[in-house]
């Protein structure tokens, strides 16, 4: 990583050096040409005899030509200057953007390594424990349910990875069907209640509400949002989910009582690989894929998603989707 940053510094040095060189050359050429222009004009004026009746008219013409040439150099130079500046700015921005993307991808690789290896480590350790030790039934039960939890986590991560690469490649088949969003939420929430028996997940449900959607995708979006709410809020605080029927649309809210999301990050969290804070200060682990997928899924359903602050603390993710009869 150290070597890479050195390389980037070198690239930036070359960039600024070339830019400076081009601008100095431009100024230098202007000075050289305008000097040449002045000496040519002076030379022409000296060639005219002062006794010439049209002397002053000829001098005026030469002066006029000199001025026009100076204006021409200035005009052409300025256009060059503007074009080069525009190109340089464009190049600078593009390189910077690439750098940010490559840094995010690097962070993503670190995150993915952790997210994949941890469940594998837990599963392996738990199986080895069962093999090595004579445990009582309660202990065995706990170990097994922890292992199942970890394999679910691995499965969710694999789904996120697969779907994001399919979406990137435009290969995912979006297959909408008429579905009951209330029932879908109920099934997702009951799954979470089984996986996290110690967490309180409240659901303010509604009567059956139908919409045209892809069951797999919506399920994944809801999973990611609940997973995030659990990850980013204290264990003793509930997760509150509600479904409201508004005119021709439904509004689904996922509220947690964690530390919330700063205004500056409220839009950015939906960007691919974006994670709040730096790797060292992050309070929970993740890949930066979850919310990006949620956003893409809701957009694919022509719906809206936004974040507001929860009271007294935490974040609220609100999804609005069109309903059908």
């Amino acid at each position, binding site marked *: *990583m150290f070597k890479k940053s050195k390389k980037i510094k070198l690239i930036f040095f070359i960039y600024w050096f070339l830019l400076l060189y081009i601008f100095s050359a431009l100024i230098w050429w202007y000075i050289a040409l305008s000097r040449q222009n002045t000496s040519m004009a002076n030379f022409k004026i000296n060639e005219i005899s002062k006794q010439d009746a049209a002397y002053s008219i000829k001098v005026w013409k030469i002066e006029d030509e000199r001025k026009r040439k100076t204006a021409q150099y200035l005009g052409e130079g300025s256009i060059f200057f503007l074009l080069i500046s525009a190109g340089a700015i464009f190049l600078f921005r593009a390189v910077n953007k690439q750098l940010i993307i490559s840094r995010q991808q690097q962070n993503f690789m*670190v995150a993915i*390594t*952790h997210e994949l*290896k*941890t469940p*594998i*480590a*837990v*599963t*392996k*350790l*738990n199986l*080895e*424990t069962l093999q*090595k*030790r004579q445990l009582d039934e309660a*202990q065995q039960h*706990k*170990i097994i349910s*922890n292992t199942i*939890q*970890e394999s679910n986590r691995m499965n969710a991560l694999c789904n996120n990875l697969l779907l994001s690469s399919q979406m990137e490649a435009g290969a995912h088949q979006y297959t909408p069907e008429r579905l009951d969003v209330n029932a879908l939420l109920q099934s997702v929430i009951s799954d979470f209640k089984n996986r996290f028996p110690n967490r309180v997940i409240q659901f303010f449900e509604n009567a059956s509400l139908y919409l045209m959607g892809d069951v797999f995708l919506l399920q994944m979006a809801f999973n990611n949002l609940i997973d995030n709410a659990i990850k980013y809020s204290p264990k003793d605080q509930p997760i509150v989910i509600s479904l409201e029927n508004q005119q021709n649309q439904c509004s689904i809210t996922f509220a947690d009582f964690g530390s919330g999301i700063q205004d500056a990050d409220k839009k950015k969290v939906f960007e691919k690989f974006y994670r709040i804070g730096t*790797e*060292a*200060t*992050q*309070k*929970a*682990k993740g890949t930066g894929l979850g919310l990006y997928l949620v956003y893409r899924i809701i957009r694919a359903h022509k719906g809206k998603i936004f974040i507001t602050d929860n009271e007294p603390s935490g974040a609220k993710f609100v999804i609005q989707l069109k309903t059908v009869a």
Partner: protein
Amino acid sequence: MPQKKHSILLVEDEENLQDALKLNLELEGYELTACADGLAALKILEQEHFDLMVLDVMLPELDGISVCETVRLQKNDIPILILSAKNSSADRVLGLKMGADDYLTKPFNLEELLLRVEKLIKKNDQLSLKTNVPELFVFGKNKIDFNGLLANNSAGQEIQLTKKEAMLLKLLIDHKNEVVTREKILQAVWGYNVFPTTRTIDNFILNFRKYFEKDQKNPKYFLSIRGMGYKFSTH
């Protein structure tokens, strides 16, 4: 002193991994304290002695590498075993450079982890038992015979030392001209894991002055360093 259980501080934020590690290490007979972030680990280390720290790298609040660095800057020589998902050689080198004694990558083999833990603790025990103090130690006109638990002072008196007194003398003499902290004394001589505020050591030092100092009010050998600990001085 009865054989005390070795204690381990486990710093791991993944709950399921923490549970499984705790269970296994406890079944091996270790006393476990677990916490889930770097700052909490540093706080616990200030108040308690451990024979080993098992440390994850990617931790909330303060990462494992910084924890390792801080522990070493605080002159704490607790053996540290890093347990991390980061497995490149650069990551390992960084961990070891920052003061870890061993580095194991996830996923790991249970048997291997248990063996490494045992070895690190054993090695540290052996190191702390080893002293460079000769069995017959002379300073000024005083003489201590650690084998016979006897001492002779400058006044020619023979003093019978208790086992604890001999241990404390050995510890101070082994670190002569260095400050030995109260925590280190309590841990090494009394085997306390939790550090209480106690005047026990003060009483021992007062006895030593009675035995060996010519002027007890202006001690030459057994010095108290306010707020830090004690020093055996030969200057």
